């Protein structure tokens, strides 16, 4: 690990940095992470085990009360749907970008990245505007005669999934694009000359080679979706809570910090497990560019 880090740092005259200098360079980053992430999370988890007295009761409540178990399952299922939708919507865009001329690819790339610079709140509000009873989607559906009266689109699980997929799409497109672009054109040519029709080339060569990109995109989207707060809060049904909304309720309305902490603890456990599974089975270090 240290050698991996050390090898990345060089003096401007070409000498390798010593371990100590490397440590000093990295210190501010780790200090901030420790202060704003490790410490508060640790504190929360501590509370979940120790209040009101040293106990596992808070966790028992999460697991045994079907209401909370259902919230947890719903959150996981929503994240799965969002991830799936992002793969389906994102892959063609990434594929197009990887095959297009440089200028076109750059333009599409900007279109993909640009929304990242507007706030999630704005993008979510846009969806509530589109999906309301007199919104563009409903009036469009009625104008084309698909429905005769406005559908209930807002405050549904579908609205949450669609809007979250929209918000998280760039995190799927960019890793897939990266994987696709690193496939040399000659692989496609080789497959063709060896007798593969286009579709077989895609299935046997392009798709397998883009799997690392799909995997890292899915991991990013899935893990972010698990903890998503604003979109479910604004577009979701109050009867169909997701875990982040539940945590917020417990902290701000019920003021039950120990139970909220236990919920966070369960979520953290899931995220950590998934990240570990991904990194073991899909060589996460390789996805990040290591050889």
């Amino acid at each position: 690990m240290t050698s991996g880090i050390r090898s990345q740092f060089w003096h401007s005259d070409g000498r390798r940095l010593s371990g100590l200098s490397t440590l000093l360079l990295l210190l501010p980053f780790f200090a901030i992470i420790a202060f704003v992430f490790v410490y508060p999370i640790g504190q929360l988890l501590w509370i979940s085990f120790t209040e009101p007295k040293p106990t596992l009761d808070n966790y028992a409540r999460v697991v045994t009360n079907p209401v909370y178990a259902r919230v947890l399952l719903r959150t996981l299922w929503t994240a799965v749907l969002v991830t799936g939708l992002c793969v389906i919507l994102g892959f063609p865009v990434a594929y197009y970008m990887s095959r297009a001329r440089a200028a076109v690819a750059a333009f599409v790339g900007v279109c993909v990245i640009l929304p990242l610079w507007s706030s999630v709140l704005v993008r979510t509000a846009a969806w509530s505007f589109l999906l309301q009873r007199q919104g563009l989607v409903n009036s469009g559906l009625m104008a084309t005669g698909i429905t005769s009266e406005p559908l209930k689109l807002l405050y549904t699980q579908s609205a949450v999934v669609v809007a979250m997929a929209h918000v998280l799409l760039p995190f799927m497109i960019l890793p897939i694009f990266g994987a696709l672009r690193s496939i040399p054109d000659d692989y496609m040519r080789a497959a063709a000359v060896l007798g593969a029709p286009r579709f077989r080339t895609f299935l046997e060569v392009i798709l397998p080679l883009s799997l690392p990109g799909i995997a890292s995109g899915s991991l990013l989207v899935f893990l972010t979706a698990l903890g998503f707060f604003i979109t479910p809060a604004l577009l979701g049904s109050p009867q169909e809570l997701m875990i982040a909304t539940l945590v917020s309720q417990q902290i701000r309305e019920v003021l039950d910090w120990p139970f909220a902490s236990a919920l966070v603890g369960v979520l953290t456990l899931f995220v950590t497990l998934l990240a570990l599974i991904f990194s073991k089975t899909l060589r996460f270090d390789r996805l990040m560019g290591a050889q």
Partner: protein
Amino acid sequence: MAMNREQTAGASIRISRLEKRFGNVSAVDGVDIDISAGEFLALLGPSGSGKTTILMSLAGFEFPTAGNIVIGSEDLTYVPANKRNLGMVFQNYTLFPHMSILDNVAFPLKMRGVAKPERYARAEEALATVRLAGYGERFSSQLSGGQQQRVALARAIVYRPRVLLMDEPLSALDKNLREDMQLEIKRLHAELGITVIFVTHDQSEALTMADRVAVLKDGRIQQIGPSRELYERPANLFTAGFIGEMNFIGVTVESVGEAIAVSLPSGEHWNVPSTSAVDPLQAGQKAVLAVRPERLQIGGEGAAFAFHVKLADIVYAGSALLLIGHLPDGTEIRARLPGASDLSTLTPGATAVFSVPKEAILLYAGGAK
């Protein structure tokens, strides 16, 4: 050997009036080549000469603007690459990194619907043909460049195509490996009887490997012929300069008869046999006299074809000795002599006499470069 000659014998190729334009740029400009079945043809030229475009048209990655390509008896000009049934080896190996070596070699058979057991048996056999039996379980990242290229070769012949296209297949390898692979490819060519089209910018590779070499420049064929003909009697000044080393001396033609009388910048007058003239020449015109550096001999004052050169440099390189000198008009003259030659009194700054055997002299129309 199970892959017998009958099954894989090569196909003839006829390229007629091939043209390929990209916008206003002509990459290939009216190329005709007839390649006989089982021939080994090298396409040689500098970058941008059109050699790669011709290969891409043969493979089906580019469709020509005009002209046609007939392989065997089939017109394949506009047939997609995956339906041509040609073998191809690329410069960068292009082994699929997510498949084992065996799966890579079996890939074309899989695309042809060959059942799994036969597919793998034939892939093993092809690996044995390139001396990589037992490497099937590995992945391309575990193989050296030379091994990868041999796997690529196995993959290109496993479905017994009648034509093998090679796009600078050796240029990514270091020198020793390259020579090994040259022999390997020659051996396979002889063994399989397959027609090979080999693109390269390395002239010694082309001369060593091919039955015939086509020299290209600016999308046109400059000369096509056996190596020896190309080297010993280049058809024009471009080929003369592109293939091997050549001294070019600007001369004036004084008279044309049974012999051609020319005057050299160093003051000598030679009566060159008329067979030396590659282009038709007329009295009074400027011409270029070309002679290979290894055909120059030191000494021979008073011989029929001797001239004086002021030496600038003498470079000893073990087996050979390179002499660099100049004529009074500045023309550089290079001579390659055996390393053990006795130069006795010759030092840089001295004037040396070189003589040339008459059959080594070539005359072209036009001014010196």
